[in-house]
């Protein structure tokens, strides 16, 4: 059973955090809790729920923006002939490798000038630096895998490229769109650097920022932090278990593109 140590390494910390979230604050000093309590969860309060909502809105917003802008662009890159086609795909791959810090200062000034600083909408734009390249990559490779004759048939049937996309390729792309949406959602939900830099008021914080800056009165409230971590993990755990196959295909398709 060579899997046990691996499972212990990966799941152990998560289970320990779950236990800690039920650990009464007073007994934190003991090696093991004598009793379990839900006080930490109750103590999380509105601000944490607010952060969860913000994360949801930003992640959903980024997903919507990237699918809206990326879907037909990916179709064009995969199927149509136009100048700069490979340049665009190459640039998008390069951009996905940009370190986010490289664009923090200009984006800060840009968002500030546009009055978008310290706003959730203001986070969606920077998030597309990593989300859009991912969307383009996944959807382009999916559209390329569809049989060539399908596109020829659509053109023979009189479709303009846009009609071919709307009537034939978009309906067929629903599985790929779902995979892309999930991955973009996860990456947006997990982002920290831009959120820390651009959002200041507590009411607009996302989950990663809320957890990073979680500070109690004096001592670190480890019980509450654990509770917050568990709550932040739940939606993603659900996503992972429900769409595991999709996520794996998306990750590997995105990576191994022989």
């Amino acid at each position, binding site marked *: 059973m060579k899997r046990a140590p691996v499972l212990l390494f990966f799941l152990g910390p998560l289970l320990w955090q779950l236990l800690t979230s039920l650990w009464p604050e007073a007994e934190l000093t003991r090696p093991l809790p004598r009793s379990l309590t839900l006080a930490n969860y109750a103590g999380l309060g509105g601000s944490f729920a607010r952060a969860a909502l913000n994360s949801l809105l930003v992640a959903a917003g980024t997903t919507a923006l990237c699918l809206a802008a990326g879907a037909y662009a990916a179709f064009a890159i995969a199927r149509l002939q136009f100048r700069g086609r490979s340049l665009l795909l190459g640039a998008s791959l390069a951009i996905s490798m940009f370190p986010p810090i490289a664009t923090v200062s200009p984006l800060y*000034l840009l968002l500030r000038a546009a009055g978008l600083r*310290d706003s959730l909408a203001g986070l969606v734009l920077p998030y597309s630096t990593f989300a859009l390249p991912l969307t383009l990559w996944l959807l382009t490779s999916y559209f390329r895998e569809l049989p060539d004759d399908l596109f020829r048939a659509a053109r023979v049937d009189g479709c303009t490229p846009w009609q071919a996309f709307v009537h034939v390729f978009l309906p067929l792309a629903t599985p790929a769109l779902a995979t892309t949406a999930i991955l973009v959602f996860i990456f947006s939900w997990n982002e920290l650097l831009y959120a820390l830099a651009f959002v*200041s008021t507590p009411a607009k914080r996302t989950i990663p920022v809320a957890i990073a800056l979680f500070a109690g009165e004096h001592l670190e409230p480890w019980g509450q932090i654990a509770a917050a971590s568990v709550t932040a993990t739940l939606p993603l755990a659900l996503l992972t278990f429900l769409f595991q196959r999709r996520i794996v295909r998306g990750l590997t398709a995105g990576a191994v593109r022989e």
Partner: protein
Amino acid sequence: MPCAPPNEQTPCLPTSRETICTHHTTVRATCVLLLCAAACSRTRAPADAPLTVVFRHQPLWADPAAFQTFLARFHGENPGVQVRAETLPNGSDIAREMFVSALEGGADDFDVFAIDVIWAPEFARAGWLADLSAFFPQQGLRAQFLPAAAEAASLEGRTYAVPWFVDVGLLYYRKDLVPRAPRTYAELERFARAAMERQPGVAGFLWQGRQYEGLNCNFFEAGWGHGAPQAPEGKILLTTAAAEAGLRWLRGTLDSGLSPRSVLSSAEEETRRAFQDGRAVFLRNWPYVWAQVQAPGSPVRGKVGFAPLPTATGEPGAGALGGWLLAVNAHAPEARRRAAVRLVSYLTSHAAELELALHYSRLPARRAVYDDPRLREEAPFIAALFPLAATALPRPVTPWYALAGDDIQGELSAAVAGLRSAGEALGRAQRFVDHLEER
């Protein structure tokens, strides 16, 4: 229109060449104008409409109930004004970051806010603090308030904030373990060694060594204790021989075993709890510790004394000035600004500071409160702290100190952790500060 004029401005580059960076002054000016216009329109509303002044501050006391009743009394005296208090997370660095990015974005959703003494020069220079010289002229300010506090609240001869209450670094000692308060570092070491032999396992001297602003306070105090000059006219001077000697002394307490290694990852609370559990002979900390160690059930109740910090020469050492000032948000609309000023003067009045001292054992910033008979009678500890408070020294009062704080902390932490020599660490920090100030 008394909107704070954007202060002097180095010539801006013509906008055409800057693709991304907008022309700051125009943006900020238009934004301030807009705010005032909006505000003016609002004031035309019926005069008696209740005005809500938002007071934003870090959590300053365990139980806010007493303070709420205190604010309610202000409402009583000013029926037209409602006060809503908003608290921020506790960490001082985090709170500053939040104020900076809010104010930098022109936020006007709060009016009065409590700022750390070291932020005042930076916020004033950035044009975020309303000029209160009309209501708190400099002479009055310096006469009524402790000198260091008044100094921290002013910039280039104008008043930008009003001292609320202060903190000063001081030495706590176990009266049952040492003959008297040590005056020199050598005495501190000798007394501590003797006590450690008598009571094995007890730590000699606890101070705050974690990488945060508290470490800077310990550093400056050790510097002053070794004769370092107080920052002349807002210059951050780290590379003086005395400053280096002070930092070496701090590192020395670890090498000699006088202080335990855990000091390197401790802040106020960790050291206070250790001292309160009787696990240390000496403790450097803030006045708030007194109420804790004297509380019923505290293992060291009645066995603790306090005194000025020791020095190399034996003169009473100066503690670093801490504490909070109250300022008015420059972006706040005109109507709420007048009410805000009234709230500031109410909270920094003699009666208010007395109340805060008695209820939350907070050191008043007003000199006169220390002579108040009620204070002497009900809070002798605070009254006795006047000489220390009066001689407290501010960390460098310059807009650049708050900005350079993070880098200085890093270098000091490296020195006390033994990663770099004191001289090298201070050299690197000075180089960063000079670059930042464009010297």
